[in-house]
């Protein structure tokens, strides 16, 4: 397809989306509401995000973000609108993701408000709309820039509090979610590695070590965020402003979220701060306990940090094999495959 046709197609898709959003903001905020400044922020192969304002009849402005599935997927009749029809890899559908954010907000987790959802139709894929908050979500900037110097020492405690709160949401209030116990999660990662037909002694050692210590994992099964880390946290000068990207939400072991935020991949070089490159383990666990999550034994955190290293390595391999198998040829994805050894190296430092 020529660039011209692509551009024309993108214009039509934007007009279609604007029409859908205008209708929805009028449903939600009243007749006469308009939309302004609709612009696409990112468009990976997996999700699209758009920024726009709702202009209310009284002149007030609501800054908003739309997150929706990629259009080509619905056009191919693929993955739209299947509530709970998700796996741990692809994540949940957009309605479920938005619903998780609403539930988290109700129990006091800092999250953007989610005022409405979009159904998939012939003009748009399924999506949800959230408040556009001020703040920074890029991990490196949060760690480096002076604007966040006052926020950084507070973040580990605040992350612990936030996690304790969303881990405590009663399961019967949650939408349908994929579910993995610690044993199932280990089996799952081992199966993924086996499917690559590339025997991996380092990760095998880690899996063996974890299997021998499953009693350390704990047996709570709760909502877990699934990607709770520096990079999915919105931060302003005062501290944690929002926990973002709930698309890997699932039922799992709650301490998996705390182990994940501690792995080195999210420290962006600030290795002396184990929690996200900004904080201390003691603060994370203090915040978790203060918000009612109980005192997490260090051995349990170590188990889940080791598991997180394994998971990071497997995620890197999955990306590489997406390219190698030819599903999506991508220099970026295949290069990330070489980062699997970072997870392996760190895993082998944690085990004995």
């Amino acid at each position, binding site marked *: 397809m020529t660039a011209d046709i692509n551009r024309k197609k993108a214009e039509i898709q934007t007009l279609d989306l604007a029409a859908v959003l205008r209708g929805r903001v009028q449903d939600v905020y009243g007749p006469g509401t308009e939309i302004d400044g609709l612009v696409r922020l990112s468009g990976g192969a997996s999700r699209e995000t758009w920024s726009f304002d709702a202009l209310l009849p009284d002149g007030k402005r609501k800054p908003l973000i739309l997150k929706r599935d990629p259009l080509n997927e619905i056009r191919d009749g693929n993955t739209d609108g299947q509530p709970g029809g998700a796996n741990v890899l692809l994540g949940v559908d957009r309605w479920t993701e938005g619903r998780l954010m609403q539930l988290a907000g109700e129990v006091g987790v800092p999250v953007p408000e989610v005022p409405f959802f979009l159904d998939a139709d012939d003009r748009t894929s399924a999506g949800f709309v959230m408040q556009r908050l001020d703040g920074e979500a890029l991990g490196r900037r949060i760690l480096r820039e002076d604007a966040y110097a006052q926020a950084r020492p507070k973040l580990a405690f605040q992350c612990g509090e936030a996690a304790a709160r969303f881990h405590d949401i009663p399961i019967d209030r949650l939408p349908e979610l994929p579910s993995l116990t610690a044993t199932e999660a280990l089996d799952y990662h081992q199966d993924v590695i086996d499917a690559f037909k590339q025997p991996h*002694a380092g990760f095998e050692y880690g899996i063996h070590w974890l299997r021998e210590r499953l009693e350390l994992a704990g047996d709570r099964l709760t909502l877990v965020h699934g990607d709770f880390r520096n990079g999915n946290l919105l931060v302003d000068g005062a501290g944690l402003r929002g926990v973002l990207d709930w698309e890997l939400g699932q039922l799992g072991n709650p301490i998996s979220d705390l182990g994940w935020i501690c792995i080195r991949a999210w420290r962006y070089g600030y290795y002396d701060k184990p929690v996200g490159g900004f904080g201390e383990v003691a603060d994370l666990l203090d915040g978790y306990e203060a918000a009612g999550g109980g005192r997490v034994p260090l051995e349990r955190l170590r188990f889940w940090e080791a598991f997180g290293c394994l998971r990071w390595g497997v995620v890197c391999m999955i990306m590489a094999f997406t390219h190698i198998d030819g599903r999506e040829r991508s*220099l*970026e994805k295949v*290069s990330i495959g070489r980062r699997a*050894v970072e997870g392996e190296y760190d895993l*082998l430092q944690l085990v004995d």
Partner: protein
Amino acid sequence: MPTDRPTAAELVEAVREFLTDHVAPNVEGQLAFHTRVAVNALAIVERTMAQGGAMDDAELARLRELLGQDGDLGEMNGALARAIRSGAMDNDRAAVLEHLRLTAEDKIALANPRYLTPRG
């Protein structure tokens, strides 16, 4: 592999320098990001060509010692992975872990040598 110059390593180096000196300064946004990714990938290839052979030899020697058998690197790693999973190496944990840590250190040195140094 031909030994005539330019060697394969010299060609890869030339491509990396071309990307760094002539492409990177003239692109922006996603293309600039992907150019950096390409430069990093070529640097991995260069380090592997320079150091990979010696690392493979050392790894294979350690595997022979651990497993008491011979084979190529792929076969030996497969054998070690199976032995770890079955529990057959449980009595040699310290030796296995030492081997795996040395191997991972070598792989990091090829993939991302800066990983071990804090940027702080």
